[in-house]
């Protein structure tokens, strides 16, 4: 039992905007009142629901490959000492699992979504998540280049494709479905890409990226998954990709979708020399289409490691930078590329990218539909979110930073003209209430009765960066886990998994196919229940038969 007394509460999901009130919790949940137990005096402090990261890369085969590729980053990163309570670890762009839990919790984040999991190595992702302490977790499954799914979509076998998708989600013990560069990762098997939404994917006779996108979005909606299709559009990072992004959003009309790291998909220009931000055009369309949510995928200057299933893009980045490049092809399912990258304030393209993420956050008018992310570790490390919060809250600080950009960049961006400033209430939306709602996690992102008692208490500070970097207390499942930057009694978090309805006969369809094209036994493919620690299963209702 715990009572937090006297704090100023920001709980946007319950329309509470800076009201001084007590918050009580018992058994890990928010309750109306408690009789006895500890009281925490939060007078003069700010209370938020624990942060929710809707899109990050913190566990999985690709990230673990990146760890192998970048010992120099680990060497330079912050160190986590072994103590009586905590495990040793390393921070930096690809933190170790234990450090990941401590870093997120230390920043007041209590729920994270690993955004890209191949089914073939899902067991590995769950192993890493098991050793990611404190935070609750969920993961999205890579599906838009799965050859079995693509073949079915190409043949127009929608119902069967739906059963396969549902079966795969449960087999991998995932929460949602992610589409990355639909068709493009498959094409990468031949060194090609799929850049035009309406042209057949190389190696296929008729299916197009547009058909994969709309097919999957429809399937996810019909299966009633709590989180809509989580979409990384085609043509990521390329000059002029705004056209592809707009076309994709049009294809999605009539279905829900979450547009991942939208900043990387909002570029104009014909080449790197004419590269410019098209955040305005994207925001205009996005504001009018309420079926969509997005996350920013903001960029900060400094070191990053780009890790994405978008294989062809990573080859291009390798050629552009001449830096290390790792490529993984995951049999019939997906692929992955890894290239360490440094965003430089003096570089025209990087300056436009930096501005673009902030522009989207400021131009998209509904904070319930855009969430704070950096596509960690692609745009910047997640533990740098407080720097972005500070910029969102202070137009003058932004304008000073804009002045330091290369002169050539100024005509390519509109950031300097934007006066909007986020309130604390809006920050609580884009870091917690909004992403929780978009994920369909009803017990997260708010402080109403019955919600998970995940709470962050900040010292009020005009320097948003300082305030959000160092919460005074972080409470997870009703227990104080961070006190003035120190991790206390870390526990294991839970994992949210969805079991959509499917016809069990689908296994008879899959088994022979599997024996033909996979290197693994069908029986060894699904993730066993006992492998997922702290599992919590939701069973959505299939809305179409």
């Amino acid at each position, binding site marked *: 039992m715990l009572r937090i007394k006297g704090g100023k509460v920001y709980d946007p999901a319950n329309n509470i905007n800076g009201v001084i009130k007590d918050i009580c919790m018992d058994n890990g949940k928010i309750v109306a009142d408690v009789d006895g137990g500890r009281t925490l005096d939060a007078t003069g402090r700010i209370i938020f629901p624990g942060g929710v990261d809707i899109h990050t890369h913190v566990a999985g085969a690709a990230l673990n490959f990146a760890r192998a590729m970048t010992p120099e980053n680990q060497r330079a990163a912050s160190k986590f000492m072994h103590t009586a309570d905590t495990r040793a670890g390393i921070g930096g762009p690809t933190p170790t699992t234990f450090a990941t839990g401590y870093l997120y919790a230390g920043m007041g984040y209590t729920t994270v979504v690993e955004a890209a999991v191949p089914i073939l190595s899902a067991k590995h992702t769950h192993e890493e998540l098991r050793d990611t302490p404190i935070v609750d977790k969920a993961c999205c499954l890579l599906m838009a280049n799965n050859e079995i799914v693509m073949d079915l979509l190409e043949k127009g076998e929608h119902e069967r494709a739906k059963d396969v998708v549902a079966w795969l989600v449960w087999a991998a013990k995932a929460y949602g479905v992610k589409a990355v560069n639909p068709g493009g990762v498959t094409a990468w098997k031949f060194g090609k890409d799929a850049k035009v939404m309406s042209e057949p994917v190389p190696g296929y006779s008729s299916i197009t990226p547009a058909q994969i996108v709309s097919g999957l979005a429809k399937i996810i909606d019909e299966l009633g998954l709590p989180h809509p299709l989580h979409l990384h559009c085609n043509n990521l990072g390329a000059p002029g990709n705004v056209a592809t992004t707009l076309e994709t959003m049009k294809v999605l009309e009539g279905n829900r979708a979450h547009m991942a790291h939208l900043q990387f998909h909002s570029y104009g220009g014909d080449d790197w020399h004419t590269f410019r931000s098209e955040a305005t055009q994207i925001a205009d369309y996005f504001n009018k289409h309420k079926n969509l949510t997005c996350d920013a995928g903001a960029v900060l200057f400094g070191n990053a490691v780009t890790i994405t299933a978008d294989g062809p893009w990573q080859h291009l980045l390798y050629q552009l930078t001449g830096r290390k490049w790792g490529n993984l092809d995951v049999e019939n399912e997906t692929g992955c590329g890894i290239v360490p990258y440094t965003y430089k304030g003096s570089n025209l393209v990087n300056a436009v990218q930096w501005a673009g993420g902030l522009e989207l956050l400021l131009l998209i008018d509904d904070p319930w539909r855009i969430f704070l992310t950096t596509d960690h570790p692609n745009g910047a490390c997640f533990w740098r979110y407080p720097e972005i919060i500070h910029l969102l809250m202070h137009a003058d600080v932004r304008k000073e930073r804009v002045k330091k950009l290369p002169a050539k960049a100024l005509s390519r961006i509109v950031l300097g003209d934007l006066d909007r400033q986020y309130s604390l209430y809006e920050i609580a939306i884009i870091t917690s209430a909004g992403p929780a709602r978009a994920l369909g996690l009803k017990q997260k992102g708010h402080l109403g009765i019955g919600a998970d008692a995940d709470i962050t208490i900040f010292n009020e500070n005009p320097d948003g960066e300082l305030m959000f970097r160092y919460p005074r207390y972080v409470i997870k499942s009703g227990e104080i886990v961070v006190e003035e930057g120190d991790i206390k009694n870390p526990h294991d978090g839970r994992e949210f998994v969805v079991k959509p309805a499917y016809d069990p006969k689908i296994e008879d369809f899959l088994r022979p196919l599997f024996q033909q094209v996979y290197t693994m036994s069908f*029986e060894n493919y699904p993730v066993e229940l006992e492998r997922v620690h702290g599992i919590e299963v939701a069973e959505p209702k299939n809305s179409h038969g």
Partner: protein
Amino acid sequence: MSLIIVKNATCTFCGCVCDDIELHADGEKIVETKRACSLGESWFKHHTAERLYPDALIDGHPATVDDAVERAADYLVAADMPLVYGLSNVTCETQREAVSLAELVGGVIDSHTSL
């Protein structure tokens, strides 16, 4: 004794880690393998569940696992720079415990990869 048949078993002999092996076991020994290569077959047939060795040895003398575990802990705690080495022919779950142990005693952990 009736044979136990295990399908889709995984062979850990080489890095291929084939997982389509069928094993026929009589409780103490694997008497037949299907789909395993010659290396895998001899690996499976060679390792039995017979009690061929003492549970533990301390200074070359038979001992209980409990005593051996305590002695091992004494040595590791007393050491300034203990080494945990090998990790090839064990499961990931074991490797995970081994990292945790190495951390607890402030040691070095290393595998065949360093050779």
